[in-house]
C-alpha cells in the first residue's frame, strides 16, 4: 500500500512508520504543523512551529530513507480543535480536543488530502488495534487510545493503519532503541498540545475573560459562593471549589449552567449519574441494533461500566449504567465497547454526552 505516516516527532509515530516500512509498504512521512500559538509565528513570509519536534520526525524519516514533508494545518487546527475547545467550555461542556483532532484533522483533513494525492491510508502511532475494520483496545491497557479514536467512521477507519496496537509502550521504546532512534527515550506527551504549560483554566480565562457567576448548593438552592468563570470547573470536580460548606462533607460540581453561569455543587450522594442521554452517535461499523448490552467508557482513561443502551430523543442514545458514575459531564464522549478479553474490547461507536440524570 501507499501509506502516509503522520510523524509527530515522538517515539510512537516513529516506530509506527518504521513498522510500516518493514511491512513493505511505500511510506511517505509528514509532520503536521498545528501550532496555533501565533506568538511563535514570525511575522512576514515565514512561520515556524515546533521546530524541535519537526526535526525529530525528519531525523527518523531520513534514517528510514523515506520522503518527508511538513504540512501546515495550523489554520484548520485553530478552527476545528482550539476554537471548538473554547466554545465547548463557554457552553458549559467538557470537550476532548484529542478526539476532535482525530475526527477533524488526522482522519479528515489529512486523510482526505492523502487520498487525493494517491495514498491508500494514513499511518499513526496510536495505541489501538485495527484489523478487518474492527477497532479494539491496545494490548497495553495503560496506553490504550481507542477512546479518542472511537469517533472515527467505517470510512475513516478504512483509511487508517495503527501498527502499534499489539505492542506495549515499553516494547515500542525498545524497538526505537534497537533502531537507534534518538527519540527512543523522548518523554511522553500528556498535556493538551496547545496548552504547553498545562494550565487549562488559565488558558480559558485568557480566551474567555472573567465570567463571574454564583455557586449554588443543590440541596438548599442557596448561593454559597461566587466564581470567576464557569470554565474553571468540570462536572465531578471536588477540589478548588472555593466555598466553605456548613458541614465537613465534601462537595462536588454537579452541573454548570452557561447562560446564568451557575455552578451547582452537592454532596457525593448527589454526584452519581445512573443515566446518560447523548447526541446522535457515530458507529465504527454498521449501526448497532438497540437495545444493546455493552460497556461504556465516559472519559479518557476512565473505567468502563456495563450498561444498557436504548434509543433516546432526537436520534440520540439513552445509557442506563449498571452502577452510578461520578464526573460525567456534557460534552464528554461516551464510547461503547463490546467486551472481548482475548482480542481486545471492540469499539462499537461513540456519542457526546448531552445530559445526565441520577
Amino acid at each position, binding site marked *: 500500500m501507499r501509506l502516509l505516516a503522520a510523524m509527530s516527532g515522538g517515539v510512537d509515530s516513529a516506530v509506527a512508520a518504521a513498522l510500516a516500512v518493514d511491512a513493505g509498504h511505500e511510506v*511517505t512521512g509528514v*509532520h503536521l*504543523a498545528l501550532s496555533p500559538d501565533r506568538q511563535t509565528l*514570525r511575522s*512576514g*513570509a*515565514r*512561520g*515556524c*512551529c*515546533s*521546530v524541535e519536534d*519537526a*526535526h525529530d520526525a*525528519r531525523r527518523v524519516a531520513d534514517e528510514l530513507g523515506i*520522503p*518527508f*514533508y*511538513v*504540512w*501546515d494545518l495550523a*489554520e*484548520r487546527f485553530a478552527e476545528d480543535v482550539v476554537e471548538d475547545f473554547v466554545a465547548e467550555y463557554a457552553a458549559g461542556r467538557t470537550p476532548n480536543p484529542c478526539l476532535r483532532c482525530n475526527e477533524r484533522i488526522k482522519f479528515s483533513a489529512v486523510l482526505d*488530502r492523502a487520498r*487525493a*494525492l*494517491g495514498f491508500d491510508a494514513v499511518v499513526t502511532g496510536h495505541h489501538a488495534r485495527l484489523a478487518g475494520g474492527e477497532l479494539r483496545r491496545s494490548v497495553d491497557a495503560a496506553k490504550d487510545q481507542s477512546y479518542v479514536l472511537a469517533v472515527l467512521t467505517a470510512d475513516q477507519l478504512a483509511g487508517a493503519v495503527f501498527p502499534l496496537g499489539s505492542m506495549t509502550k515499553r516494547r515500542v521504546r525498545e524497538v526505537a532503541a534497537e533502531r537507534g532512534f534518538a527519540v527512543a527515550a523522548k518523554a511522553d506527551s500528556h498535556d493538551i498540545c496547545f496548552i504547553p504549560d498545562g494550565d487549562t483554566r488559565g488558558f480559558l480565562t485568557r480566551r474567555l475573560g472573567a465570567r463571574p457567576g454564583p455557586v449554588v448548593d443543590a440541596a438548599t438552592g442557596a448561593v454559597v459562593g461566587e466564581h470567576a468563570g464557569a470554565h474553571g470547573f468540570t462536572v465531578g470536580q471536588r477540589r478548588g471549589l472555593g466555598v466553605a460548606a456548613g458541614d465537613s462533607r465534601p462537595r462536588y460540581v454537579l452541573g454548570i449552567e452557561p447562560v446564568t453561569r451557575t455552578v451547582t455543587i452537592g454532596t457525593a450522594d448527589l454526584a452519581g449519574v445512573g443515566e446518560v442521554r447523548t447526541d446522535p452517535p457515530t458507529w465504527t461499523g454498521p449501526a448497532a441494533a438497540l437495545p444493546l448490552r455493552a460497556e461504556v467508557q465516559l472519559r479518557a482513561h476512565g473505567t468502563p461500566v456495563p450498561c444498557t443502551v436504548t434509543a433516546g430523543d432526537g436520534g440520540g442514545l439513552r445509557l442506563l449504567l449498571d452502577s452510578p458514575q461520578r464526573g460525567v459531564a456534557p460534552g464528554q464522549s461516551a464510547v461503547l465497547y463490546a467486551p472481548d478479553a482475548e482480542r481486545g474490547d471492540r469499539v462499537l461507536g461513540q456519542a457526546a454526552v448531552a445530559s445526565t440524570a441520577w
Partner: protein
Amino acid sequence: MSSSEAAYLDHAATTPLLPAVLAAMAGQLGRVGNASSLHASGRAARRVAEQSRERLAEALGARPSEVLFTGGGTESDNLAVKGLFWARRDADPRRRRIVVSPAEHHAVLDSVEWLAAHDGAEVTWLPVEPTGRVTPRALRAALGTGEDVALASVMWANNEIGTVSDLAALAGVAHAVGVPLHTDAVQAVGQVPVDFAASGVDALTMTAHKLGGPMGAGVLLLRRDVACTPLLHGGGQERDVRSGTLDVAAIVGLQVATTTAVADREDRADRLAALRDRLVAGVVAQVPDVQLNGAPLDDLLDGTVEGGPGRLPGNAHLSFPGAEGDALLMLLDARGVECSTGSACSAGVARPSHVLLATGADPDRARSSLRFSLGHTSTDADVDALLAVIGPVVERARRAGMGRR
C-alpha cells in the same frame, strides 16, 4: 528513486561540485599551514590563498584587495548590510534609513529587519515591477536626498523568479546622492555578465556552491574606500573586516569554480536557455493555463543584447492554478523529479513565496508555484523526465486542491 537517478532541476539551491574543484581542493586538504603564519608552511598556504584572491578578482572585475573571503552568501549579506549600516551611521547619526527591495533573499531581509528591531534602523521598501525588477526611477524616489540613508541593497538576480536588475544604473542613482549600494549576486555570477568595477556597486555578495564550488565558502567584494564594521572580531584577517583563519582549500575551490563558471558562461547560458525554453514550452503544452512568473524568457535588460539577459538562463518559475506547490513538489519527488517551491521555515513549513507576493501576485498564485532551475550538469533527459510526468502530477495535485478551505 535514489537521488543519483533523479532528474535534478534545483541547481539554484546548489549545483554539483566541478571535478576540477574537487581535485584542486584535495590537493590542499592534506597540507599543513595557516595563511597567517610566518614560517614556510604558512607562506605556502598564504601564497595559494592570495593567488586565488587575484584570479577571483580578475574574473569578477575587482581588485584583489576588494575580495573578502567569508563563510558563504548568508554571511556576506549580513556583513554588508549590518557592517555598512553601522559604519555609515557611526560616521553620521542621521543615516538610519535602509532602502531595500522586499524581494531580497532572507539573508538580506532578516538582517535589515533585525537592525530595524534592535538597532534603530528605518526601512524603506522599494516597489518592484510585476517582473520583480527594481527600476532606477523607484530607487531614486526612495533615496530622496540620501542624507538620511545608510545603504541601499538590491539583488543582482532573484533566486526564485530569476529576474535580473540593472545594477550599473542603480549604482549610478545611489551614488548621485552619496549612498552606497550593496547587491546580492549569488545567483548572478556565472549566469549573467558581472563586472564589479564596471557596475559601480560598493559591495557584492557571492558564494561558491552555486557555481560548482564547495559549500561554506563565499566572498564579499567591498570597494576599498567603503567602510564596513566587522561582525567577526579576532585575528584581523581580510582587511580587519572578517577575522578568522582562511580556509585555503575552500578558497581554492571557490576560485576554481568561479573562474570556470565565468569563463564558460556564454556557452553554458546559451545551452541552458535553450533547455529552459524547451522545458517551459513542454509544460505549457500539457498545462495550458500555467503561468510564467518573472520576466519573459527572452527579456533583455535594457532592450539590447549589450545590456545582457533580463532573466537567468536556467530559471523557469511557474504557477499552476488550483494546485498547491507543496503537493506538486511531493508528487514530482516521488517520481524522481527534484525542484523547489521557494522558501520554507526551519520547521519545514512551506510558505507562499515572499518574492511573488512582492511582485503583486495573489497568495494562491504564490502558493501554487514551483521553481525549476538548470545548471552545468543539466541535460535533455532531465527535462524529458519532467515532461513525462508533469501533466498527471498537476491533475492529481489539483484534485487535492489548495489544502485550505
